């Protein structure tokens, strides 16, 4: 690790101000950033920790019924506390290992937008709203490709608002070494339609499988997916799976997620 300064503001305003410094970098749970620093693959001059800001923490239900999760809430707290949205709680409880879950945060995961992370599938699959210090961004507009998001420089996620579906489930097929999602599929059924979000598979990061959404909107059963297929074009190919394999898994896991959602 290279030497750096660290600030630990207690208000959003102070955090935004601190992030204005040149080469400053926001630090949430640090489950990606700290290993990167330890390998000397990044050299920020200043880290601004977001985990001492009370406004960024906690889980509550909004007047419209949406589940609101503070950006600096760790996965373990979501797993235990998001009882209003069991599929989301279950997803949080499967991220990494207990150490990762007690440090890693939902805001950190969404800001990083790792193409194999779990939370992007939940946010996109739920049509969540990403609330920042400046604005509210719909999930459909937020994810812009591998490690790319709609966040501006220095913009901080404050909370994530999840509309709670009638039924939902997340199925993760783990990459054998990292245990990240080789492919993960989040399926959610709302009164006005079904959303299917896929992580781990695409070179463009998390995406919606719109054909499946349409088919499941008409008939929410695994059988509705028969006849559909996912193209291997643009799928990730690596040591752990070919593009064909990932495309195949998208369909298999979508069907199983529908079954799991009941």
């Amino acid at each position, binding site marked *: 690790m290279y030497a750096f300064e660290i600030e630990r503001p207690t208000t959003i305003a102070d955090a935004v101000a601190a992030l204005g410094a040149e080469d400053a970098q926001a630090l949430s749970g640090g489950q990606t950033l700290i290993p990167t620093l330890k390998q000397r693959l990044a050299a920020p001059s200043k880290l601004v920790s977001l985990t001492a800001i009370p406004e960024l923490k906690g889980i509550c239900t909004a007047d419209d019924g949406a589940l609101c999760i503070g950006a600096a809430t760790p996965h373990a707290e979501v797993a235990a506390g998001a009882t209003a949205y069991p599929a989301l709680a279950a997803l949080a409880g499967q991220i990494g290992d207990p150490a990762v879950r007690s440090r890693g945060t939902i805001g950190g995961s969404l800001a990083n937008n790792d193409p194999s992370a779990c939370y992007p599938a939940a946010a996109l699959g739920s049509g969540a709203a990403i609330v920042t210090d400046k604005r509210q961004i719909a999930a459909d507009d937020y994810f812009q490709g591998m490690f790319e998001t709609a966040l501006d420089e220095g913009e901080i996620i404050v909370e994530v608002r999840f509309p709670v579906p009638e039924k939902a489930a997340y199925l993760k097929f783990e990459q*054998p*070494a*990292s245990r990240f999602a080789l492919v993960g599929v989040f399926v959610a059924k709302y009164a006005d339609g079904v959303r299917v979000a896929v992580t781990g598979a695409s070179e463009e990061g998390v995406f919606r499988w719109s054909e499946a959404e349409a088919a499941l909107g008409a008939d929410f059963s695994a059988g509705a997916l028969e006849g559909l297929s996912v193209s291997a074009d643009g799928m990730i190919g690596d*040591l*752990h*799976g070919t593009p*064909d*394999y990932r495309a*195949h898994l998208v369909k298999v896991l979508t069907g199983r997620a529908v079954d799991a959602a009941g």
Partner: protein
Amino acid sequence: MPKDHGIGASQKRREDVRFLTGRGRYTDDINLAGQAYACFVRSQVAHGKLNGVDTAAAAAMPGVLRVFTGADFEGVGGLPCGWQVTDRNGQPMQEPGHPVLAQGKVRHVGDPVAVVVAETFEQARDAAEAVEADIDELPAVIDMKAALADGAPKVHDDLSSNLCYDWGFVEDNRAAVDEAIKNAHHVTTLELVNNRLVPNAMEPRVAVGDYNPATEDSTLYTTSQNPHVIRLLMGAFVLGIPEHKLRVVAPDVGGGFGSKIFHYAEEAFCTFAAKQLKRPVKWTCQRSESFITDAHGRDHVTKIELALDAEGHFQAIRTETYANMGAYLSTFAPSVPTWLHGTLMAGNYKTPLIYVNVKAVFTNTVPVDAYRGAGRPEATFQLERVIDKAAREMGIDPVEIRRRNFITEFPYATPVAVEYDTGDYNATLDKLLEIADVAGFDKRREESAKRGKLRGLGVNCYIEACGIAPSQLVGQLGARAGLYESATVRVNATGGLVVMTGSHSHGQGHETSFAQVVADMIGIDENMVEIVHGDTANTPMGMGTYGSRSLAVGGSAMVRATEKIIAKAKKIAAHLMEASPDDIELKDGQFTVAGTDKSVAWGDVTLAAYVPHNYPLEEIEPGLEETAFYDPNNFTYPAGAYACEVEVDPGTGKVTIESFAAADDFGNIVNPMIVDGQVHGGLGQGIGQALLEGAAYDESGQLLSGSFMDYAMPRAGDLPSFKVDHSCQTPCTHNPLGVKGCGEAGAIGSPPAVVNAVVDALQRAGHTNVTHIDMPLTPSRVWAAMQG
């Protein structure tokens, strides 16, 4: 009633108290006054011409004591190879130099080009980034067959090609084997890869060099399985330090699996630099560094042909293997695909004709050397896979075809130069079928099918040659070392003992099981016996621990030394009781005169030895300390049968191990619980190789699986609760304990069981074209196999 002490008792491991409470003392726990820190600058390219190394900027950085490059090691010996293989034409293998730091060329990612030594590790690391190596990248050779093609880039310019050796075994059998295969009723052919593995011991390697200017003594603290071997190799061949001026200490070591046998550049460097700087120099390997510097394991590409008669009797075996040596010859690398592999190609079967051909190849990859099993897993895997395929092709039950070919009479001389002293392969196979409940498989398969899963059963046998080895035999085979073992038993005046062994424990539990043996022989409490190992200053010259040899060879030396102690103690007891030594019996720590009620206690005799007031000084010396060296006259041959049941998810290709049973014949057992643990660990590694682990390089020589994010290690959740049995015992006929060794069996026997089971599952599900899948059997590969 299980025994609670002595040989055969499942005593809890005494060393675990310190290991489990954080009180172990590992090499990295050693910090010497005035210690400086080394950081290696390593090649980031697989192959390149090293024009020079600019160290000026680094040398000027804060805290830097000195920056070393290959030029500092001109005139210093290279890292030696401990085994010379002779090729098919009677010529010695091609043996390239292996400089401590690269000179003229870099040959793999991780090859060291410079080392910064500084006051702190952070300073050394900062300065290491300022070292500029001027490297002209050259095309890399990664694939072994491509490396042997005409015009391939040469890893070593001074060699005639990338071929280290072309070995034929037994060369005189070749024509007869060819003829038998040509005329056979049936020939089964299988081409397969034995995947490259990264050892990944829990404790990364560490070296601390120290030099005492007053005495001119050097000391190296290192993570080694064999400190005496390191002292000999480094002292005599690299740094030119006589052994009496060099001490090597390997304290608690957190796992080796073979990777800590070898003499590494970092050990020589720290010892050398400490003398140059007159300060202790410490190097602690980073995990990512260990991926590109620890010797890797396996990496064979093999074609095996098995000829059978109409009844399924094996007629002949012919194999052709390409064995990756990596960029340099690691300490024992040449022996692994040859004498530790070819000699096991008979397996448990009476195949009359066998010919093994091995081409060892240099590539721009990390050196490959012995890894848990070392050659024997490669032999077992190809043999047990081709037998399974043959059984299927001929419509013979896979268990039956093995029984039909078992060796049943001993001693048995194989056509590949070894003689099995004893064994009972039907007994372990019978036991396996019982504990694995093979009879109930069909019912379990139906139950799996109801859940949409494909269940398969894989059964195989294995044999290994352990307890290496008879020194004169291995000398004829090219070893540049003897392979005896040593022990000194020092009895103290008040009756306690210290056993100083040349074996080294790095997870095997020697401190417990060795004490059980000695205590049992004398009839005293185990707590009166202390086992000392790992320091050349206080143990006799020994060859260390690998090849499942510690109890069979080191334990035998300890028995011999203890026998000498008992013989002398009986003379003292005889004197004290005014009887003839021939009439003295030792039982439960009491010496008695046979047929009388006269007795003296163990402690009375040991006290007399050191306070010789009433003592036969004219006949024997005072004191009670004996040393023995034991050189075995044969290998030992543990053998057994394994069964694996898997479920395959047809939707994803994911394999889960539903059950795994192992029936092993290890001869006599000293501590059954420790043996269980050794087998469990071996099975974990074997299943890891079969399902998860694989080191992969890209074409340019970058290690794609260079961290735990991409190199999958087995975890507890990947493994079932094993059914392990070692009640079938045919004691070794030639060592005093009748023991055979158990450390590697699990890793040798389990990979074919897993692959056999997966192929069985797919075959039963109608994928009849799937006859083999290369390890690791990742979901992606299994799914692809199912697609045809």
